[in-house]
């Protein structure tokens, strides 16, 4: 009922662990696969080892979550040794990559491709890094990075992850598709801040961070809706999906697959199975046999 085709990849269901949550080790990837995710995205890796920001790097409450982890990671070279290969785990793996300069995106993509992930995700949209001018905010820079990664990924499909912190997400998505992206991941976190009035300081050590969780969902649904209007390639709709009804909403906006990250904070690693079960219940009740029947239906 929930089997999904994303580019050339067959998924047992459309839920995908979003990058940045848990996907640091092979054993955690396996555990999340076994708990029900259709695919797992690794935490982003770049050309060097990074420690990330000082803590607090994340906190959350009822309907909103904040983070500014600062892209910590062991670096692609160390990951090559630890992972060995990514095509023999319990679930298809998406390798998330980034670099500081355009050439580094290519260099990291090439190494990631050698691990044989099912897909490579290009993180151009993390709002915490000081890139000078952010890649995500400029269609020309987005296209440059997309081309560079595409040229270094062989036959592995690539998805470009977009940020909501832009004036017009449509022109960015269009630029990525034109430059060779096989899919779009929409969206990364929205930029925000929380100040503790007793401490008189922002809580995140980085001060500014990314908003995720249920509060992000309406922004994500709007972005997926706009991207679906603009491109023909599939969309991994990500942002605030916690329940089956959220996933159905994403599909109606135009998503092919559904990213879930912060949902783990609210419902544990079992969130993937719970979301899938809830989707099926809704589909049966509404006599929907296949998600294709409702994909993008909100546009009609």
């Amino acid at each position: 009922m929930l089997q999904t085709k994303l580019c050339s990849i067959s998924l047992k269901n459309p839920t995908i662990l979003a990058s940045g949550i848990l996907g640091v080790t092979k054993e955690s990837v396996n555990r999340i696969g076994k708990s029900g995710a259709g695919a797992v995205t690794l935490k982003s890796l770049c050309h060097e080892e990074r420690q990330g920001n000082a803590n607090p790097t994340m906190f959350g409450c009822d309907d909103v979550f904040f983070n500014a982890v600062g892209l910590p990671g062991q670096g692609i070279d160390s990951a090559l040794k630890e992972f060995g290969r990514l095509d023999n785990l319990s679930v298809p793996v998406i390798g998330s990559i980034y670099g500081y300069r355009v050439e580094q995106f290519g260099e990291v993509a090439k190494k990631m491709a050698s691990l044989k992930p099912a897909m490579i995700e290009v993180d151009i949209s993390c709002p915490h890094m000081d890139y000078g001018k952010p890649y995500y905010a400029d269609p020309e820079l987005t296209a440059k990075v997309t081309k560079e990664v595409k040229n270094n990924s062989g036959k592995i499909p690539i998805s470009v992850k977009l940020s909501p912190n832009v004036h017009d997400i449509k022109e960015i998505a269009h630029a990525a598709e034109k430059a060779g992206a096989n899919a779009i991941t929409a969206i990364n976190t929205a930029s925000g801040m929380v100040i503790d009035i007793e401490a008189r300081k922002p809580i995140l050590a980085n001060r500014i961070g990314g908003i995720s969780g249920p509060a992000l969902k309406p922004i994500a649904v709007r972005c997926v809706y706009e991207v679906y209007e603009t491109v023909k390639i599939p969309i991994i709709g990500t942002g605030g999906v916690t329940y089956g009804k959220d996933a159905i909403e994403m599909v109606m906006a135009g998503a092919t697959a559904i990213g879930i990250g912060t949902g783990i904070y609210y419902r544990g690693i079992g969130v993937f199975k719970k979301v899938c079960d809830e989707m099926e219940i809704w589909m049966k009740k509404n006599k929907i046999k296949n998600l294709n029947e409702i994909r993008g239906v909100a546009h009609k």
Partner: protein
Amino acid sequence: MGNGKKSKMTHHETCRTDIPKMLEIRRVVQEGKGQKSFFFNHSIGCKPGQFVMVWLPGVDEKPMAVSYCNKKEFAFTSQSIGKFTNELDKLKKGGKIGIRGPYGNSFSLKSNACIVAGGVGLSSMSTLIDKLKNPLIIYGARSRQHLIYLKRYKNKNMIVATDDGSFGRKGFTTDVLAELLKNKKNKIKIVYTCGPEIMMKKVFEICNKHKIQCETSLERYMACGFGICGKCMINDKICCVDGPIFNSQQLSKMPEFGNFARLKSGKKVTIKEYHSVH
């Protein structure tokens, strides 16, 4: 402030709070030469072996074991070993710090228990000791100045050992435990341990040899405390939510226990290298 539990008012599963709450330090107790306990008038509802995340605005946020807990107040005990704990050490009564939690699972509560603690690791076990009926405590440290709670536990059944013999027996806690378990008349049914990982590994092995159940409180680099940042993985276990307490059955399936840990970057290194950084 919260503990990740569903609120009584819940209308859906997303009712939880993990935001640091600024609390006033009500008293500071010097526990040893470089160790202090910070007390707060706040009921935190902590189970034995749980920890809180402690935020020093502008410095860092770190996990700290809850070392005193009753209906009126709680405390944690810090040992000055780095930038964060040195900044903590400067704080006085009336100062404010951010607290969230408690987090983690908890020790089982079994009778005929033996506690094996090393150094400031005893602080992670004190919420357990308070709940147990007359446990035998084997407590060790490098030297006298590294021992804590000697007054607090003066009426407890406690054997103290120091590496240099400056207090109690000269030698290691693990030697005391091994001797004790060799005596067939011992009534010990379970061993709870917290301290340097090399010590805990040894305790686990001794317990296995004598077919006695063991529970350890493990430490890994943590950022969130609620199981999503993925930094504290030990094999397929998430230390902050699946642990920090692990039993013999779990430990025997964790080859990284006693051998490897992950740096803040996520890079896997030997325990020795890990402790030289964190």
